[in-house]
């Protein structure tokens, strides 16, 4: 985390100086994380890519407004989360609810065929379980357990109280524990 923060600081400096390569570096550094949040939240690759692009376009337009009070990553997660929640709240994406198939294709690690079958089943169940969470709980568990943000960062990104983040996260994990019962040792 420390190293990344240092990278972010220099990246932010370069962005503010108008270094033409800086934005490209930013996209390269954060593309997977931003796309990951979008895909976990929306469940559809095409929609997730569209939203991730929108996140970076907003960053590109608003980089001058970035104060540096929060981490660059937190700022990006904040934008991505807000866009996802807004889109989920709007009626325009009701048709894109069939994200399960897309989610099963997410695995790309090199694994043995036997592992792959097992993994595929687990992945499917896992992503379905996440997808079935309520949106407010889902974003918290995505940011915490999939993206590794701290409670404070999540509270900043989602503009929530720490207690709210903690309780939502706990509820989300309890839901997942029930749904994933059969995969537990």
């Amino acid at each position, binding site marked *: 985390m420390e190293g990344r923060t240092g990278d972010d600081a220099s990246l932010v400096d370069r962005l503010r100086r108008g270094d033409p390569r800086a*934005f*490209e570096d930013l*996209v*390269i550094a954060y*593309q*997977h994380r*931003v*796309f*990951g949040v979008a*895909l*976990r939240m929306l469940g559809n*690759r095409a929609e997730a*890519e569209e939203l*991730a*692009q929108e996140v*970076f*376009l907003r960053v*590109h337009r608003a980089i001058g407004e970035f104060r540096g009070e929060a981490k660059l990553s937190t700022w990006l997660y904040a934008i991505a989360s807000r866009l996802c929640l807004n889109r989920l709240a709007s009626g325009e994406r009701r048709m894109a609810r069939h994200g399960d198939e897309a989610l099963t294709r*997410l*695995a*790309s*690690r090199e694994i043995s065929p036997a592992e792959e079958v097992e*993994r595929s089943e*687990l*992945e499917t169940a*896992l*992503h379905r379980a*996440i997808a079935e969470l309520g949106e407010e709980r889902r974003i918290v*568990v995505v940011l*915490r*357990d*999939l993206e590794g943000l701290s*409670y404070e960062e999540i509270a900043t990104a989602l503009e929530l109280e720490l207690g709210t983040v*903690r309780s939502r*996260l*706990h509820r989300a*994990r*309890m839901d*997942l*524990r029930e749904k*994933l*019962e059969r*995969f*537990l*040792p």
Partner: protein
Amino acid sequence: MSCHDAREQFSALIDDALDAGERAALDAHLATCADCRRELQRFRDTVGLVRAAAPVRAPAGFVDRVLEATRPVPWPRRLVRDLFLPWPVKLPMEAAAIVLVAVGVALVYRGSPELEQSIRQEPAAPVMTQAPRDTPPEVKASAPARENEDSRELYGARREKAREQDTPREPEKAKEAPRAQERVQEFAKEPGAVSRDANLQKAPKSPDSQAPVIGKLEAPASGAERQRAAKDNVRSGTTQPTERRADSLKAQRPASAPPTAAAPSVTSAFVPPDVSGQLAVSDRELALRSLKELAARLRAVETRRFDTSDGPIIELAVPRETYAELNSGLARLGRWRPGKEPSTLPATIRVVVRITG
């Protein structure tokens, strides 16, 4: 601490988010509760499963697409994009515009033949009606006739129409009057009559260069007109330049359509008479003399006289006041069969009397 309270803190425990007091209390409960210890393990495993989920990677080319999207769009492309997006709104509008343009073009193309025709007619029409009239009789040479020869031939039929339309025009009539007088005087000097038929055959063979022009001119004209022209030639004889005849003919033709719808038998008049009729007599010479006396008494003026093989044709200008008397006088000379009279008689009535018998 109850089991429920303990399990509520599992999430924070895993994330190391408990303060020292909370942590001590939870540890104390877990030490004494096997169920909660087992439950904590399952909870930890669940979070482990989630955290072990395969990482998501952005699709290939994502960075390039983002960078492409952030590049300033050149204005022509921006214009195109603005024109065509958002398509749900613009597409129907553009389709409508295309249809509108197509319809407009179709209408213009459909209208163009008429437009073309009207443009073609414009210069021809005035040439036909004006050129001969505007040329002074003395200067009436072959040039104008030749110039317009082709167009006349082309628009012969249309010229007929134009003539009919021109008839009611008063200024033309006014012009006609002195010209008619002039022509009558010319006739007076002319030598004796020649056979009409013979002349009809002779006309095209005339050494005069204008003769063919006349032939052409008359080609589209009606039979009656041709007869009239032929008779004209008869009167003019050899001493009169043929083109002059033609020009006079043309000059008078615009006004030639009889407003009285006179019978076609009125072949002698270039200017249509108001009344025309046939006077059948037993003695032509006597009838001519009597008619002359009658005319003198009634203040009628003989304006023209044509001698044909069928008999003389005399045109008289009769004052309206003595017109009735003329009619009764003619009836006394022989069998007078006047044609239709105009509904309103002019101050001076032109009466054509064809003496037969």
